[in-house]
């Protein structure tokens, strides 16, 4: 149990996917202009990460390792993720139309989000147990959502601020990320 808590806290705060590991930066700078879409995106990514971690853990331990074809993992993981995203999209479309419209374009784009492939590869290299990978995926997703929401809140205010012309848009977003990263560094000593 202690191990699982350590994995969870490590993923959310200490090795935060965006600020420390630099995974999933495209949605971070692309989507984080408004709070609402940012939270939808965070939830969608967390969801896909968790399902992808479960699926790839099963495939890795019951197919790749027994047949000794672990070197194929990149091709197989990306196919699994692409298929999963499609299935989830169809499922949500059939069952919950409101949620489908809330996710919008972000759902299909998750396939090429490096955070999702990243978590499956991290689970594989760290050799986490089944529960460990699920907790790692949930933690990573929560950390991602947290930072995305914080960033979008700050950027909503930044729109109104009087930033120098050359700094408008992306550059000031990077500077904001610097300050957030500096703040998250403080979590380093927690475990």
């Amino acid at each position, binding site marked *: 149990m202690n191990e699982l808590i350590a994995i969870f806290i490590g993923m959310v705060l200490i090795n935060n996917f965006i*600020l*420390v*590991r*630099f*995974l*999933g*930066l*495209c949605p971070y*700078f692309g989507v984080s202009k408004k709070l609402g879409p940012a939270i939808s995106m965070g939830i969608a990514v967390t969801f896909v990460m968790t399902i992808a971690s479960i699926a790839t853990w099963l495939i890795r331990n019951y197919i790749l390792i027994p047949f000794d074809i672990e*070197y*194929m*993992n*990149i*091709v197989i993981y*990306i*196919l699994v993720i*692409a298929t999963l995203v499609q299935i989830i999209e169809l499922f949500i479309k059939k069952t919950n139309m409101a949620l489908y419209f809330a996710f919008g374009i972000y759902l299909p784009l998750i*396939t*090429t*989000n*490096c955070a999702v*492939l*990243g978590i499956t*590869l*991290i689970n594989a*290299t760290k050799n986490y147990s089944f529960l460990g990978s699920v907790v790692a995926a949930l933690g990573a997703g929560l950390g991602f959502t947290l930072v995305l929401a914080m960033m979008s809140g700050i950027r909503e205010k930044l729109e109104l601020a009087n930033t*120098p*012309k*050359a*700094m*408008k*848009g*992306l*550059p*000031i*977003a*990077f*500077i904001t*990320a*610097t*300050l*957030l*990263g*500096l703040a998250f*560094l403080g979590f380093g000593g927690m475990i």
Partner: protein
Amino acid sequence: MGKFAKEFAKGLILSNPVFVLALGLCPTLAISTSIDNALGMTLAVLIVLLGSNIIIASIRRYVPDITRIPIFIVIIATLVTVVNLIFHAYLPDTYESLGIFLPLVVVNCIILGRAEAFASKSPVLHSIADALGITIGFMLALLMISFIRQILGTGNLSVFGFDFGTLPVLGEHPIVAFVLPYGAFLVIGLLMALFRRTGVMKGE
């Protein structure tokens, strides 16, 4: 040949993948802690992008429109697997220090982006020029960021074991912040603002 040169040149500045298009940010920020890593990443991207642009441009007439994205992704993933195995065998140090970002080349937006926006619609020769130009643009951005981070963060100038000396003050008291993760955001943010201020690149 004029077209070849044009496709080659546009990747360098006008559509520089990192500073202008803001693509491939994850690997750029994560591995730019040293010049060695930047060069290793460039090599990986060069092999994959060149290979995928050539293959996709040559098969573009036979790929059905509906299934093109999965086909592109499988081609790219196979090339990335090949690059991973080559790096593991011949460049073990680079393989270790790039870590998870070597397999993650497969979801680098630059590569799928070029496949979708350019190689799937253009002849092979132009696609080669496009791949080379974009890779060199990517390399310039990576080298610029990693050079600043390595100099300020460690104070020495060594590239693949060749030591070009240590800087006088920074060598003893490096500004460690620059090799820490948040230093990457600071460097790229300031560089981008500088390019916009000087008019090299367009702002918003």
